[in-house]
């Protein structure tokens, strides 16, 4: 990724050119779709304060002249694209790509809000809530795939944890116990995935698929056989929102990030912990070594199997936390198939975030955003069908995975079973 500038890799050069063209295209897209359908004198108002009573400091709403701002955004992305084509941003390519993605989002918002007002903080708040389970799923993927085990069973693990947390939460009346038991239950599924993939060397896609089918079947079975009859087993309480002192007073960021429930904060903590563990501790070095080249790691005395077992079980537990969020963190009840593909979106976020904790979190935020827009789009009566926005995360992931722009490369031994010699 960080090739020496003197060594020119033709594929890298082609990619950097493709990125330049892509950035210019985004600029043109802003022009074609948004600039041309706006007229001079239109104003867009962005609400900068949450609609509810909060402890955040109030700031003034922002009003932008639509046409001028759109022109600036369009020109800025074209300029960045041209700069990329002419000189190349090299290591800052990811940052520039993120910046232009943000520009596109802003342009879209500005255009959608012309002659209207849009509560930006409200959207951000909703996006964070929607991004949380996705980010936890992606983080679970980071843990597993960095050690070389593909985990497509995240969906099933989340679903199981969601069910367990609903039942245990209702029976015990304690949210903490519910959270712990649910996380342990999905950790158990992680252990099953690990045993199948590592001990029995089952193809990881197959073991993941089996666990997904098992989890959807088992949770729906329990739900239909017990929860439908005994409704009191499915009525846990909900984690309250705890504003973080001081941080929640920051305008915009405060209400969006620091007035949430404990699971969202757990996610933030986990992000930092996993990032530090992965890049600055022996455990992280071992994990990455096992994911890239298990044989070499084994030669150096690292127990490949043990590293993989630990990581997959931890990954299962983190995925479970995402499932718990869906129940105890939002609607406090379990519904059949309530994860609705969030585990798979998490996989997409993992790829888009290039197998890094913070990258995955950023990607999850973007996906959470598109999810929120999609709902908003219908309210704003925008002429773009909301379904296209729903496709966007998946399309972006495919583009990134194909390496047309911002190539994402998985760990080298991802998905390979390891057999000790």
């Amino acid at each position, binding site marked *: 990724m960080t090739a020496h500038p003197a060594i020119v890799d033709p594929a890298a050069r082609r990619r950097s050119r493709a990125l330049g063209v892509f950035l210019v295209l985004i600029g043109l897209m802003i022009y074609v779709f948004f600039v041309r359908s706006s007229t001079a004198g239109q104003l867009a108002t962005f609400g900068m304060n949450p609609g509810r009573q909060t402890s955040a400091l109030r700031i003034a709403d922002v009003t932008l002249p639509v046409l001028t701002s759109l022109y600036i955004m369009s020109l800025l992305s074209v300029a960045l694209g041209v700069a990329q084509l002419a000189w190349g941003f090299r290591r800052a390519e990811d940052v520039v790509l993120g910046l232009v993605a943000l520009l596109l989002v802003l342009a879209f918002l500005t255009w959608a809000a012309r002659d209207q007002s849009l509560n930006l903080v409200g959207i951000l708040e909703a996006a964070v809530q929607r991004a949380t389970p996705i980010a936890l799923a992606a983080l679970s993927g980071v843990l597993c795939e960095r050690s070389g085990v*593909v985990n497509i069973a995240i969906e099933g693990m989340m679903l199981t944890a969601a069910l367990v947390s609903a039942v245990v939460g209702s029976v015990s009346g304690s949210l903490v116990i519910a959270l712990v038991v649910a996380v342990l239950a999905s950790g158990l599924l992680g252990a099953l995935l690990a045993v199948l993939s590592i001990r029995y060397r089952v193809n990881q896609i197959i*073991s993941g*698929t089996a666990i997904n*089918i098992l989890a959807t079947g088992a949770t729906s079975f329990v739900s239909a056989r017990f929860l439908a009859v005994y409704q009191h087993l499915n009525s846990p309480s909900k984690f309250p929102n705890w504003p973080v002192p001081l941080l929640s007073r920051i305008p915009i960021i405060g209400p969006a990030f620091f007035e949430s429930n404990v699971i969202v904060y757990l996610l933030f903590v986990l992000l930092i912990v996993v990032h530090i563990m992965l890049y600055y501790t022996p455990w992280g070095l071992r994990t990455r070594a096992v994911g890239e080249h298990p044989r070499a790691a084994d030669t150096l005395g690292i127990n490949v199997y043990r590293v993989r077992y630990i990581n997959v079980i931890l990954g299962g537990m983190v995925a479970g936390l995402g499932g718990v969020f869906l129940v105890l963190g939002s609607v406090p009840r379990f519904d059949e198939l309530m994860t609705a593909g969030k585990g798979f979106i998490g996989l997409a976020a993992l790829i888009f975030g290039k197998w890094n904790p913070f990258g995955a979190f950023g990607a999850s935020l973007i996906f959470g955003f598109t999810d929120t827009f999609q709902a908003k789009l219908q309210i704003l009566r925008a002429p773009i069908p909301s379904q296209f926005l729903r496709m966007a995360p998946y399309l972006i992931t495919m583009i990134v995975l*194909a390496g047309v722009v911002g190539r994402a490369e998985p760990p080298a031994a991802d998905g390979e079973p390891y057999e000790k010699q």
Partner: protein
Amino acid sequence: MKRSTRARRAHAQTILLPLLAIVTALILGGILIIVSDLQVIAAFTRIPRQVARPFTDPATQVSLEEALWRHPNEVIVGDAVDVGNRSLRVVEEVTDDRNQISLEEARKLYPELGPGVTIHYNFFQKPGVGLRAAWRSVSVAYSALFEGSIGNPGRMVRAVADWFRGDPSGLSAAFYPLSESLVTSTPYILTGLAVALGFRAGLFNIGAEGQYFVGGLASVFVGYSLKGLPIYVHLPLALLAGMVGGGLWGAIPGLLKAKTGAHEVINTIMMNYIAFALSDWLLNGPMMRPGGYRPISPEIEASARLPRFFGGDIRFHAGFFVALAMAALVYWLLFKTTIGFELRTVGANPHAARYAGMSLTKNIVLAMFLSGGLAGMSGANDITGLIYYMPNAFSAGYGFDSIALALLGRSHPVGVVLAALLFGTLRAGATRMQSVAQIPIDIISILQAMIIIFIAAPEIIRALYRLKRPRVQEPMPESDGDLAEGAPA
């Protein structure tokens, strides 16, 4: 000589292992049915028996002598006593005075065991009751599964006998379950073939769901937009449209894999969700039924419908034979043609294939096109044979089930057809099991998951049944490349 016995043992296990996997899954499913049955749980923990004299009904009563043998001669907490015409539970502290009575008062009323007192046994005191309840639970469930999937044998024989006597009225009801099983199996055959063909070429197509959707959309479009065509033109065209639609949908991840190395597993999953969104948009927009508010497509023309052979409720349609024909075609293509040889070689060893001058790009794209085409054909089949329009919630999880099918069928067309018949039968029967025995239909998914695990990790089955591991190379998929080793040569 020695080699051939080994080979024979390996060959025997290729048939034995799937069978044992199915049987084991059914046994575990039965255990699940038992332990999730509240009546069985009650029969294991608290078996009520009323002390009676004279003692007439052993199912609800117990003689005083037997009661005294197991139980102290006085009323204890946990018993139930008759007061007036109600039965009250004896407890230490009364919290609900309509159903409970304190120990002291109960002993005043009934100082000794005798008629009017109900005592409770546990499982170990009356194991027969619990075992019988367990047996009843599982046998009711599984016989409902059998009757729902194959039919009631006695009724079928009688219906046929009546038919010979000139009264065909009972036939359709008697054979309805069988017809439903075949109807349910049809999409499974095609999606299973799709995944199996991918496996043979070393590709993991877990996007059969999306390809099925797109195939259905393409087929329904051809079905309702073209008018006035004769059936022998319109129907093949509708099926072909489904095949091409699904094929193109599958070819995109194939092309990405061949050109950029992007893993097809992720891309097929992404294409699934894109297909759902696309279908949602089309059904709410361009393809919405005129004059309606629901997101469904118009009905296809009569000339685009697969013929049904029997009237009335029997939904069995020609699509089943289309699926069988496709299975034969896939067999021929894979094992009797150069194209199939190339596909299998690329699957078995891409490096060798490239060295032998085969184009990886061409073969990967072709394999994904054919695989997607089969899944698309499955969607087209359901549109033209069953529902005649495109509903918004179209598919029923074929994408993941088909992986189980391909594994169970060892990626061989014949195996896939047999596996699909099994799964279709189970699914169709589960509907009846749900209504008769209140076992949620989701138990089939649990069975399927267990079958996948047992097939994919045969060591578990071998350990359970003390089978020896054959020395010949294990014909199980362990990684991408080995997936093509489905059947022994």
